[in-house]
């Protein structure tokens, strides 16, 4: 039920943004289509089951987005610095990190965030370990790498997806 409702809401928001209007006839068409789509597509999906819709969860979602945007900009400055430096200061390697997150959706978000943050790229995910291509390996140890790469996002995602 929760999944159904959230799918409906997302489809509706997409529809409104695409049309860029609040005319009642367009809204009604969108609502009917979104209702049918979410009914057919979301009979068994469990994407949002673990999500917490408490005020705390929502506040943490916003903070997470902020942290994410700051990191995206930082990662670009980092990439720019590496690319334009004549010596090409890279020290690449694949490291393993562990995550405590259980929810599938949270893990997807975590892997996406890792890919977009400074010098890291998720190569593979096996159970609770992520294999990450790191452009500048500081430490090969699982614990240290986890602390360096994963923790800053994990603490928010843990609250959002209980």
């Amino acid at each position, binding site marked *: 039920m929760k999944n159904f409702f959230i799918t409906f809401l997302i489809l509706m928001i997409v529809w409104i943004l*695409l049309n860029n209007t609040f005319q009642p006839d367009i809204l009604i068409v969108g609502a009917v289509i979104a209702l049918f789509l979410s009914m057919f597509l979301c009979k068994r999906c469990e994407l949002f089951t673990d999500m917490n819709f408490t005020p705390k969860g929502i506040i943490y979602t916003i903070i997470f987005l902020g942290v994410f945007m700051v990191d*995206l900009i930082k990662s670009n400055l980092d990439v720019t610095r590496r690319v*334009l430096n004549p010596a090409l200061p890279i020290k*690449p390697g694949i490291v*393993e990190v562990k995550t405590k997150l259980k929810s599938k959706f949270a893990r997807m978000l975590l892997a996406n965030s890792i890919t977009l943050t400074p010098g890291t790229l998720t*190569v593979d995910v096996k159970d609770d370990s992520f294999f990450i291509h790191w452009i500048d390996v500081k430490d090969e140890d699982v614990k240290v790498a986890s602390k360096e790469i994963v923790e800053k996002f994990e603490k928010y995602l843990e609250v959002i997806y209980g």
Partner: protein
Amino acid sequence: MELLGAIITLMGSFVLLVASIGLIRMPDVYNRLQVGTKATTLGTILSLIGLVFLMPGWWGKLILLIFFVMMTNPVSSHVLARASYFIKIPFTDRTVVDKLKVSTKAQKVEYEEK
């Protein structure tokens, strides 16, 4: 307003320029993907934000575009990196460690399940 939009779009194109230089300079597939993903994401986002200032009527669609780029760009580069790892595209000589190779968990072939 128009000037602000133009400046932001210009910043976006600078980031994209850095990405293309990086594609040439980086030594192997994985490093190229690193540069490609990050810089193209921010470059596209900045260009689209600049476009929001230039064409205020399009803001809804452009925000949707930004959202989709942010969600799908890392996924595609992850899949590319994974595929190139499993067809054994070589690393550069400067690679210091490869944990995926020594991990026994990763060596199990998972396609047999189906």
